[in-house]
């Protein structure tokens, strides 16, 4: 058997944290290997060592049977290893071709025409679609990712590492990516793909290597694996993989959004006359390709945007409609809170908006409640109790409730944030990509928490990207496309294809009319 790369007894520690402990695995030539593991199991660390970002504490790496030292990304390139990171390493103001030129060696001549010709050849060979003269800032996420892959292939990569490439793609784009991956495989290239989505693992890979808590848990042939067998290997025990969907109990109107229009600083309409109702005891899913107004929609309701004047967001506290309904437009987060309305909001940018990274759990607990009481001194005993109880109930892994939350893993950060927002006893709970980047176990914990809130009569707005989850978890799904509401479907009756179509094509266009 010929191997593209072999890892032998790799160990890597950060301070007292062991990220990888004695990991040995190999990738055959011309195969697609899935690397699977929970958050914090050391997948990205391991890949970063192959790509020259980190250097292992001990162990060795063999490329095509020969031991090598990979000290920098340059060394990795020289050995034919290319990695596409979760956060793209592209220069926005350069064109696609100019970005490719960036990886040229010092002694190579800068000849943009030759570069383009070679890049075009690569595109033709693997069936990439890309405009080499387009600037990166004009590209969609999917196009940027394509460019990253072309960049690596241009550099002669024989082994390609893709770190969660599908997290930001629509189902259609994912299919396209997989088709390209199969072309590369047929050409004898090896690919390592990191993904949390088990159905993708089963669809694309030849073998699956599993890491558990930094240790190697084994490799299996994909043909002989199922979603539940993989989960079991990953978690170390059996996990129930069904998302519950309790029926809404006694739903009544909680929020009416009417003609909501939000413009960005350049005057472009990010939200365009969006109207919908949200009910208590219901999970309303919000689907759409990322960047189609989801973020602005939730922020507008939370009082963080300046919607146009004819927009209306009305909040109804109880069944009793007219007497105490409140118009939320024109109010700040604080004035909404002062009205006694508990809007909880789990924003997409956890450490950039929802939490303060440099502060511990305790100080983060008081982010929205520190003003309570008339004292000049902030009360920290209630937040400390809350932090302790969230740590215990949700199983947050942290050395102490005062450890800066930016040092916690993604899943634990999300538990802290969701825990705080739920503890505020909300009547409306908004979540943006609540399970992005989280492993199966933590994701199911989050779904369970949302369902609990739903049964308590909370109106939940769930912005999601995984259509399977949206269809399984939500009661109704609102689809945003180009900032417009492109339809609200019953999640119990819809299909992935229907939602996917609504995400990509405006209804009016389908019907051939222009609004």
């Amino acid at each position, binding site marked *: 058997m010929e191997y593209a790369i072999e890892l032998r007894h790799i160990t890597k520690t950060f301070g007292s944290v062991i990220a990888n402990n004695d990991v040995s695995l190999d990738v055959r030539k011309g195969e697609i290997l899935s690397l699977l593991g929970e958050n914090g199991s050391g997948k990205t660390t391991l890949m970063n060592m192959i790509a020259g970002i980190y250097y292992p504490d001990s162990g060795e790496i063999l490329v095509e049977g020969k031991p090598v*030292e990979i000290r920098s990304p340059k060394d990795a390139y020289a050995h034919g290893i290319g990695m596409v990171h979760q956060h793209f390493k592209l220069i926005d103001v350069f064109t696609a071709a100019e970005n490719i030129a960036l990886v040229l060696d010092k002694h190579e001549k800068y000849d943009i025409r030759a570069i383009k010709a070679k890049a075009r050849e690569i595109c033709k060979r693997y069936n990439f679609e890309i405009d080499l003269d387009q600037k990166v800032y004009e590209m969609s996420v999917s196009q940027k990712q394509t460019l990253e892959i072309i960049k690596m292939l241009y550099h002669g990569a024989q082994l390609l590492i893709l770190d969660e490439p599908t997290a930001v793609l629509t189902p259609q784009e994912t299919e396209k990516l997989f088709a390209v991956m199969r072309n590369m495989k047929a050409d004898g290239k090896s690919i390592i793909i990191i993904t949390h989505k088990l159905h993708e693992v089963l669809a694309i890979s030849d073998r699956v290597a599993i890491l558990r808590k930094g240790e190697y848990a084994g490799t299996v042939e994909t043909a002989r694996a199922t979603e539940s067998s993989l989960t079991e290997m990953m978690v170390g025990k059996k996990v129930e993989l069904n998302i519950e969907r309790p029926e809404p109990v006694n739903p009544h109107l909680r929020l009416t959004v009417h003609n909501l229009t939000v413009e960005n600083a350049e005057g472009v309409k990010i939200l365009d006359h969006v109207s919908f109702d949200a009910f208590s005891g219901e999970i309303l899913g919000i689907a759409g390709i990322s960047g189609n107004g989801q973020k602005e929609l939730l922020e507008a309701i939370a009082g963080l945007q300046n919607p146009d004047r004819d927009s209306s967001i009305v909040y109804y506290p109880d069944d009793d409609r007219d007497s105490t309904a409140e118009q939320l437009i024109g109010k700040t987060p604080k004035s909404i809170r002062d009205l006694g309305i508990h809007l909880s*909001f789990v924003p997409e940018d956890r450490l950039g908006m929802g939490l303060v990274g440099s502060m511990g759990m305790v100080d983060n607990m008081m982010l929205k409640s520190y*003003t309570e009481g008339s004292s000049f001194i*902030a009360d920290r005993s209630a937040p400390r109790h809350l932090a302790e109880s969230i740590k215990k109930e949700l199983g947050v892994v942290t050395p102490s409730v005062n450890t800066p939350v930016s040092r916690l893993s993604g899943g634990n950060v999300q538990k802290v944030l969701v825990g705080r927002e739920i503890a505020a006893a909300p009547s409306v709970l908004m979540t943006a990509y609540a399970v992005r980047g989280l492993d199966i176990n933590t994701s199911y914990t989050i779904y369970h928490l949302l369902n609990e809130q739903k049964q308590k009569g909370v109106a939940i707005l769930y912005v999601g990207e995984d259509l399977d989850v949206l269809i399984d978890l939500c009661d109704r799904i609102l689809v945003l496309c180009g900032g417009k509401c492109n339809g609200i479907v019953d999640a119990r009756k819809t299909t992935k294809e229907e939602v996917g179509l609504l995400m990509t094509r405006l209804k009016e266009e389908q019907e051939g009319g222009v609004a």
Partner: protein
Amino acid sequence: MAGNHEPLMRVVKRGESPFKLKLLVRLIAVLMALIVDALFIYFVTGLNPLVVYTTMFKGTFSTPMRFSWAMRDLASLLLIGIALAPAFKMRFWNIGAEGQVLMGALATAAVMVYYGGKVPNAVLYAAMLVAAVFAGALWGFIPGWFKARLGTNETLFTLMMNYVAIQLVACCVNIWRGQASGLGKLNMKSKAGWFPQLFGQRYNINLIVAALLVILMYCYLRYSKQGYEIAVVGESENTARYAGINVGKVIIRTMILSGALCGLTGFLIVGGRDQTISTTTAGGNGFTAIIVAWLAKFNTFYMALISFLLIFLEKGAGEIASAYNLNDFASDIIAGIILFFILGSEFFINYKPIFRTGRHETLSKEAA
């Protein structure tokens, strides 16, 4: 296996460092600084390093008077550092302490010039204090307001405000000195507005105020609601807005506080130390205090230690220069080397170097 080398040295981030390790790293840093300095002293100046070190030490400790002067200078530096702490914690780069101190000093001096001897002393002190605090606060408020409302760059803004303050002081000094060649001490005869002597020195009041503010500012930043708001705004304005904090209000309020404390420092310098004013009243402390605030990571108790170190080095360098007739550069190099090692040790507290061991080569050979 040519070309396959483990890097000679690489650095790895440490986790939480235990206190013992921190202490050890710092001690080694001081020791290495002394050794490198000794080499410099011996080979460049030809003096005996040990004797030079003793002289350096004398700069601060030779007589009670020397020590008292060092404390006087420490108070000025530390007070400004404390004043900068809330602004810097908010990530507002207030480079304008120099000007804010000068404005406080100018207001103090103006009250002394125009009301000295005309009102009772208690009223005069109160007027000096209020005027100084108000003038400093104004110099903080202006860049704060522009930042909050118009998003101007505070670094350039506060920096330029320094020059405005210097020119205002120069102008007033020219008016007040009249036909005299210099301004001299204000109210020389009546001593109106001069601080009373405390333990034999007027400036001991400055020291007491500085000590008090160390505690007060520490508690303000650490325990108060406003201190919490400052920390959140400093970390991320988005998070602050999400939390319902009025970001503009916090920026303006904090800059008023920072400026007001600088103004207070100006009041103390004029009333307690100089009894006069010039364009060098702040003496560059407004800039040195930036280093103090940053190194201490806004912990006011650390600020006191770092202020002491800087003053000690400054006094020591001055002493060496005069005792051995060296030029200022040589003595500054000696002090600078010590500072370099002490600051450099912070790196080794956060990171651990790992050197090539040769272990990899053996492993690979076994594999081959």
